[in-house]
């Protein structure tokens, strides 16, 4: 991921996106690093500008990445939604990577816990340890990939239920159900408020 990527031509990115949406895994594999690299670069710049009280807007980051990569693309709603899906995944990777870096910095101290607030990503609920969330999401993905994807898009991508539905080719009702269950499951996992799962 560290290798510098050539400036991809917007047309090529568009082509990749269309192919990836068509289920072409190779196209997805080519596309993901591009999106990831672009997002990472923008995120790094934003984090340098970090000020007290300022929050990192994944929204703005993904938006900018989109504009940079797909300058002149005329994409359908579904293709754009698909891009968001990829961007959400990339955003997750970037945040995890950052959280790990912070943990490494603080090594030696105790109670190392990087919350989403630390990552400048405030949510309305209780604060969450990013790395723990990632682990729980991986466990959830083993139970049901779709539930984990919905969380990824909703949370890391900042997508609404309808947008998530468009990105995953699901009905909004399905996404809503998946979101409710996945959130309940993660809440229990992460807050540990209740006895461990029987699953």
């Amino acid at each position: 991921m560290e290798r510098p990527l050539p400036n991809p031509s917007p047309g090529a990115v568009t082509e990749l996106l269309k192919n990836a949406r068509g289920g072409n895994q190779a196209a997805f594999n080519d596309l993901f690093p591009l999106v990831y690299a672009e997002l990472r670069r923008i995120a790094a710049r934003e984090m340098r500008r970090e000020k007290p009280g300022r929050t990192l807007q994944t929204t703005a980051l993904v938006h900018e990445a989109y504009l940079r990569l797909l300058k002149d693309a005329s994409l359908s709603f579904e293709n754009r939604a698909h891009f968001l899906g990829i961007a959400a995944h990339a955003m997750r990777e970037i945040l995890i990577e950052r959280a790990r870096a912070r943990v490494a910095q603080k090594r030696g101290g105790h109670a190392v816990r990087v919350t989403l607030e630390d990552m400048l990503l405030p949510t309305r609920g209780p604060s969450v340890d990013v790395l723990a969330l990632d682990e729980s999401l991986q466990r959830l993905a083993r139970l049901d990939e779709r539930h984990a994807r919905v969380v990824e898009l909703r949370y890391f991508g900042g997508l609404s239920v309808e947008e998530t539905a468009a990105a995953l080719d699901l009905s909004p009702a399905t996404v809503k159900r998946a979101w409710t269950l996945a959130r309940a499951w993660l809440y229990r996992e992460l807050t540990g408020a209740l006895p461990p799962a029987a699953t």
Partner: protein
Amino acid sequence: MTVTNDRWALVAELFDRAQQRPRDEQAAFLDEACAGDSELKAEVLALLDAGGRADGFLTPRGPGVGALLLGDSTATLQAGAMVGSYRIKRELGQGGMGVVYLAEDTRLGRPVTLKVLHPRDTADETRRERLRFEARAAAALVHPNIGTVHALEDLDGQLCIVGEFMPGRTAREMLDADGPFPLTEAVDVAVQVARGLDAAHQHGIIHRDLKPENILVGDNGVARILDFGIARAITPRSDRPRLTETGVTIGTPGYMSPEQIEGSAGDFRSDLFAFGTVLYELVTGRHPFQGATAPSTAARILTAEPVPLSSLNPLSPRQLDAVVARCLEKRPEERYACAADLVKELESLARSLAGRAATPALRTPATEAAPADPSARVLWRIHQGILVCILSGLAISSWWVASWVGGPFRYTLFAAVLALTVANGTMRVHLLFVERHTPAFIAAQLARTRPWLLRLDVLVALIVALSATQVLANHQALGAVLLAVSAAMAVTAWAIEPTTTDMAFPRGSHSSS
């Protein structure tokens, strides 16, 4: 692992089904559904319990990225792109509802505006249906001060509003670029907007999102209200304004009326409140209720009394203060009973401003305005015609007048009268010609010529009066006629002409100084 996955599917299904039941029936439902599998039941109950407390958990604050991205077509529509039969030329702007492009209707070969609505606003069928309904209603509104909607098109699943294109700038752009409007221009735009509102209200259509962004002032001076009825179609009726979430607001909080902020859908009087806010901003360049954040603005709209206009803009007349204050009444029933009353007040204000000396310079030459009463135009033509006759008479008779006056200056006098009357008459014939054949330019021509016509009239009247005093000694009757002509010209220049012109071209902005 597969065992766990199967188990998960079961848990998921029971969770969904239990979720749909009232809380006190969930346990009973699970008892039956789990058929003795107490572990399964415990698991689902635990998740239900966690779900009940997980509200807001993992839900990012602020608008989702998709709201920006999926709805944002900036990246997708570049110049030359075709949307249906429309060829995109350039982006004109972005608003809460979508992106607006200048496009060419390739079927009809005319320029149009193409507003591509955010998919988030048009995703579900009930909203699309309501939008279609509202667009039909708005399309039925034909008025010079309302932006014309040509069509609502469903292009590749995206709803687009096709509208008339008029070169110009929105009031917001003008405020941002040039600061507050000169008083006469502000009132002029306000009169036009009020007329547009009145026409819409008479058709039972309420704007609900009037703001400087939605007022287009054409390069020709005509003001048009944009997005009629669309705001309402997009804002779900049941949605209360969500002012507490940063970045998520329905409508524009700064231009909402108190009743809208309190959750009512509002009626035509809410438009009047928004109108007052806009007018205040046009005159002062300041929002009357500006707070640091949307919620504080909303709080000020509910409670604060704005600083009077006249204390911010010393040129602002008291009458304008009163109009704005009446629009900004907190209680709808204390505002104007209808937009027509507002139009009347503003028109009288425009007239008194036009009559007032030394009004601030116009930002743009005054131009074509809303059509006036046709009889006023006839009156204006007659007026101009009579003046041209008098001036021709003077020009023709100038030689004899000069010789009757006699003395060493007679040739100078002759030349001066001839030049002044011919110049004056030519300008008036020109105006008559323009008014008849290229009415679009009449207002601009009037703005340019009126100060000169006034000066010429006064000069001619003065010279004729001076000559008359000389002629009186020898030819009393002729002297009296000349004196009468001079008096008539003076009165015309000072009183009659401003009236006939303002009645025929009601803008009040091309006032002579």
